[in-house]
C-alpha cells in the first residue's frame, strides 16, 4: 500500500494539472490508500524543503578536526615499567594498554571487536594495576610497617592456647561524604566452651544463660555486641558479658533448689520413676531381706538414650533387646 501511494505521488508531481485532478478523484474513491494528497499546483505553494537545506549546507563552514596524537602505547618500550604506566585501578584505556585485546559479541565467524571504542572492555573491572610485580613492589614498600611474628606462637595449638578468645571487627573504606560506617562498631567475640572450666551445675547454668549464642555442633560461643555507639565500648561490653555470665553460672540461687523433675534439662535414669518400676519388676518375688537386684547399666543407658534422643529405629531396637534381657525372655 505504501509503495502504491509513493507511486501516485511521483505521478502527481510529473503529470499536468488535468491528470492530477483525475488521479485526485481516484484516490478519493479509494480511502484505504491511506495518505491523501490534497494539493493543487494552482492553489498551494509547495514548500521545497530540500532546496532550502542545500543552501544551508553550503553556508556551513567545514569543521576541521585537530590532529590527535597517535595512541601512546606505540611509543612504549618493550622493557618499560608497567607499574608506572598503570599505578592504580582505573577504567580501561585502549591508547595506554599495549595489548591487542578483543572483546564483545559479533556474528558467527567474525573476530570480536578490537579494544578501541569498546564499551565491553570499559565496563568490566580490570586488574591491570595488580600485576605480580606491582604487588611485589607494594609488599616490599609495606614491609617496614610489619613486625615479626610473635615468638612462642608458632603453631595453631599454641596461639589457641594463649589467645582462646577471638575478637572480630570490620573496618570500612568507601567513597562517601562520611568516613564513618555504622557497621564498624560491631564486635564479635568467639570462644571455645572447652577453654572454660565448669562443674556440672555451672555448665548447665552457663548454657542456659547464653542461650542460642552457643553452637553445640562446633562447641563455640559467639557474643555479638553492637548496642553501643563505639567499637571500644562494644568490645568492653562483650568482655563484660562473658565474664559476668561465667561467674554468674557458679552462683547457686536459693530458688534453684525448687527445680522439679519437669525442669530438668535431660532425662536421668537414676532420678526417675522408670528405675523404681524396673527394679520393682526384677525384684518381684524376692524376699525383702535378700539383696536387691540392680538394673543393668546397659538398660539405664538405653532408656536415657531413648528419652533424650527421641524414638528412632535404632534406639527402639536396643530398648527392645534390653527389655527382653531384663525380663530374661528369649526372643524367638
Amino acid at each position: 500500500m505504501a509503495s502504491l501511494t509513493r507511486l501516485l505521488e511521483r505521478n502527481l508531481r510529473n503529470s499536468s494539472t488535468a491528470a492530477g485532478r483525475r488521479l485526485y478523484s481516484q484516490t478519493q474513491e479509494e480511502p484505504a490508500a491511506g495518505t491523501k494528497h490534497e494539493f493543487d499546483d494552482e492553489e498551494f505553494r509547495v514548500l521545497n524543503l530540500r532546496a532550502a537545506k542545500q543552501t544551508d549546507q553550503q553556508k556551513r563552514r567545514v569543521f576541521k578536526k585537530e590532529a590527535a596524537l597517535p595512541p601512546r602505547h606505540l611509543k612504549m618500550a618493550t622493557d618499560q615499567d608497567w607499574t608506572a604506566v598503570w599505578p592504580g585501578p582505573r577504567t580501561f584505556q585502549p591508547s595506554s594498554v599495549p595489548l591487542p585485546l578483543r572483546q564483545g559479541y559479533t556474528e558467527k565467524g567474525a573476530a570480536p571487536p578490537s579494544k578501541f571504542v569498546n564499551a565491553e572492555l570499559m565496563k568490566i573491572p580490570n586488574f591491570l594495576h595488580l600485576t605480580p610485580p606491582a604487588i611485589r613492589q607494594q609488599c616490599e614498600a609495606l614491609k617496614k610497617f610489619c613486625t615479626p611474628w610473635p615468638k612462642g606462637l608458632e603453631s595453631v595449638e599454641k596461639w589457641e592456647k594463649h589467645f582462646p578468645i577471638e575478637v572480630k571487627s570490620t573496618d570500612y573504606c568507601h567513597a562517601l561524604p562520611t568516613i564513618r560506617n555504622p557497621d564498624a562498631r560491631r564486635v564479635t567475640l568467639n570462644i571455645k566452651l572447652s577453654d572454660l572450666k565448669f562443674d556440672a551445675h555451672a555448665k548447665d547454668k552457663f548454657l542456659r544463660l547464653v542461650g542460642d549464642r552457643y553452637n553445640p555442633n562446633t562447641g563455640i560461643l559467639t557474643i555479638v555486641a553492637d548496642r553501643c555507639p563505639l567499637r571500644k565500648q562494644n568490645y568492653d561490653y562483650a568482655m563484660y558479658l562473658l565474664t559476668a555470665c561465667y561467674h554468674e553460672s557458679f552462683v547457686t540461687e536459693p530458688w534453684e533448689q525448687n527445680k522439679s523433675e519437669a525442669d530438668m534439662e535431660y532425662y536421668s535414669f537414676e532420678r526417675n520413676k522408670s528405675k523404681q518400676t524396673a527394679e520393682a519388676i526384677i525384684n518381684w518375688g524376692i524376699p525383702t531381706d535378700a539383696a536387691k537386684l540392680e538394673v543393668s547399666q546397659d538398660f539405664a543407658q538405653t532408656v536415657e538414650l531413648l528419652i533424650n534422643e527421641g524414638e528412632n529405629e535404632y534406639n527402639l531396637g536396643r530398648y527392645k533387646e534390653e527389655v527382653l534381657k531384663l525380663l530374661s525372655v528369649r526372643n524367638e
Partner: protein
Amino acid sequence: MYLTRRLPRLCTGTSQLLATSCGRFNSKVAASEDRIEIPNRVQRSPTDILNALASTVGRDPTAPHYKYHDDPYLIPMSNVGKRTFAMAQEAGRKAAKFIKEEHRDLFKHQEAQPSIEAFAPQMVFTEESDVNADTLQNLIRHSQITDAITVYNLMKQKGIEITNDTKQQLLELICFYNNEEPLPEEWIEERWFKANADARERNRKTWKDGELAEQLFGEIEPKTAQSYAALIRGMSKYFQAERAYALLQEATEKQFELDTQTFNAVISVSNFLKETADQRWELCRDLLQQMAHQHLRPNLSTLNALLEVVSTFGNFKFARSSALKVLAEFKQLEIEPSLGTYYYLLIIFCRERGPVSHIIVDILNEIKGREFTIQHPKDTYFFATAMDVCRNHLHDKSLAKKIDELLHTGNNYDLIGDTYKESVYYRHYFALLCQTEPIDEFMKIYDLLVPNVYIPEPGIMEEILKAVEMNGAVELMPRLWSDMVIFDHISRESLVTRTLQILVDNPAHEDIPSHQSIPDQVGKIALDIYKKIAEPEGRRPKDLQFTGKMIGDILMLLVRSGDFEKASEVFTHIDKNQHRIPGTPSEKCLQEYVDSCIENKAPTKALTCLQYVVENNMDSQPMAERINAGFTLNEVHLSKLKSLVGENFVSK
C-alpha cells in the same frame, strides 16, 4: 586499630580470666615456661602507608602529567595547550565555586561526617551582621583579609572593644598580605602558570602607604616590639625600604627588642637604601652589629638576605670577597645553607662579564645526593640558574647531568619552582646537550622528556635541527617534523627552511637499513610543507610565504621521492605565482625536475620549465641541451624550443 593495639593486653586479660577459672578448681596452673614475646607496633602517621605505596610508582615517559586526561584527544600537545587545558579545568572549579557562593541557600546540606569546613558556604558580612571578637579571631585564623577588615570596621562602628592582642594579629595579617586578598590556596594551576607575570613586578614599591596597616599600628597603644616588627617586615616585603629603616631606628631608639626576622627583612632591602656597594656593605655591617647588640642569633634568612645584597654589588671583586667573608662567618655559626644560598652564590660568582668561575663544581660536590625541602623563597631559583650557568658560563654537559640527577633525587623536583622556571631549566639543558652530546644519546633524552615534560621552543628546535644537520642524521627528520607539526612550529620560516635544507643535503643511502623508508617519508614531509603553506587551514592567518629557495627544495625532494605528479603540480604553482614568490629556485632543482620530466616522457612540462628558466634570466643552455637530447621532439615542441633559446642552438 583499637583492638590490634590492645592485643598484648588481651592476652594478659584472658590469661587472668582463665587463671581465675583454673584457680576455682585448684587444678594445675597453666604452665608458664613457654613465654611469648609480642613485638611492639610500628608507629606510623595516617599517610605513611599511602606515601610508601606512592614511592613504588615511577614516572612513565609516555604519559602526560596526571592533571591531564590520559586520552589522545585530550593530551595537550603544545605549551599553549598545556596552559589552556590546565587552566580550563581550574576555571571549571572556579565556576562551581562561584555557583556555590551565588546560590548559597541551595547548598546548606552538610552530609559529610566529620563536616568539611571548606564545603560550607562562606559567611557574608554586612552592616547588620552580628559580630564579636571571636568572629574576627576566626577570620584572622583563616586569613580572610577582606572579611576581617569589614568585621574590624563594623566592630569599631558599633563600639565593641578590640583587644590589643587581636589588633596585633590583624596587623600581622595585613602586613603579610599588604592589605590584599591573596590568591586562594586551592588554585594550584593559576599559581603554577602565573609566576611568570610576578617576576616582572618584582623590586617595585607596592606597599600601600597610609592605609589600614599604618592606622592599626597607630591605634595599638602602648606600642610593642611585635607591632614594630610586623610593620617593618611588611614594609620591607613590599619594598617600602626607607620607612622600614626609619621605623627600625625608631624602635631601636625606644629600646624595643626586635627579632631576627625583622632585621633580615631590613637587610634584604638595604640595596634600596644606599647607592654604592661600600655604603650597602657598611649598612649591613651596622645592622648585624645591632643584632649582636641585642643578642640575636642570625639564621638562614640572614645569610640569604646578606648574599642578596652582595649580589647587587657591581664590583665583581668586592662582591666576591664579601660573599666569601659572609660564608665563612656563617659556617662558623654552623648555619646550613639552603638552595637559595647557592643561587645567590651562583649569581655573584658566575657573571656574564666576569671571569669564569667553577664554584658550581664545589657546590655540587657539597650537595650531591641530598634531599632538600623549601626553606627560603629563593630556593626555587637554584635549578634554573644552575643549568643556565652550565650552559652559558661553563658549557659543561657532565655538570648539567649532575644537576639533573640532583633534581631527580627524592622530592627535589618540588623545588623546580613554576612552569616558567621549569621551561627555562629544560631550555638550557636541551640547548647544552644538543650541542655537546652525540645525536643518538641526545635523542634518548629527547624521547624521555618530549612532549610530556618539556616542549622545545622554536629556538631550541632550531638548535636540535642544527645538531641533526651537523650529524647528517636524516633518519630522525620524520620524527622531528611530526613533532614540529604537533608543537605548532611550522609557521617559523627559519625552521622550515632548515628542515628542507637538511633533507636536500642528506639524500638517503639505500644501503643503510635504517634509510630504507626515508625517500618515501621525505616526499611526504615535502608535500606536507607544500600543503601547509599553499593551502593554510581556515583559522590560521597566512603567516608563512614561499620563498624561491624553499619551494625549489620542495620540488627537488618530490622529484627525488619519485612523485612526478605532485612535483609537476608544485612546478605549476611556481610558474603561476612567479610574481608572488620572492627569489627563484636554484638551477639544480629545476635541472633535476627536467630530468624527471625526461624520465616520465613529459616534453610539454619540460618545455614549460625551460620557459620559466628563460623568463627568469637563468642559464638556459644546459637545460635546453638536456631536453633536446632526452626527447625525440615533434614539430610543435621543436619550434617552441627554438623560440626560447634561439635558432643557433638547434642547428648545432
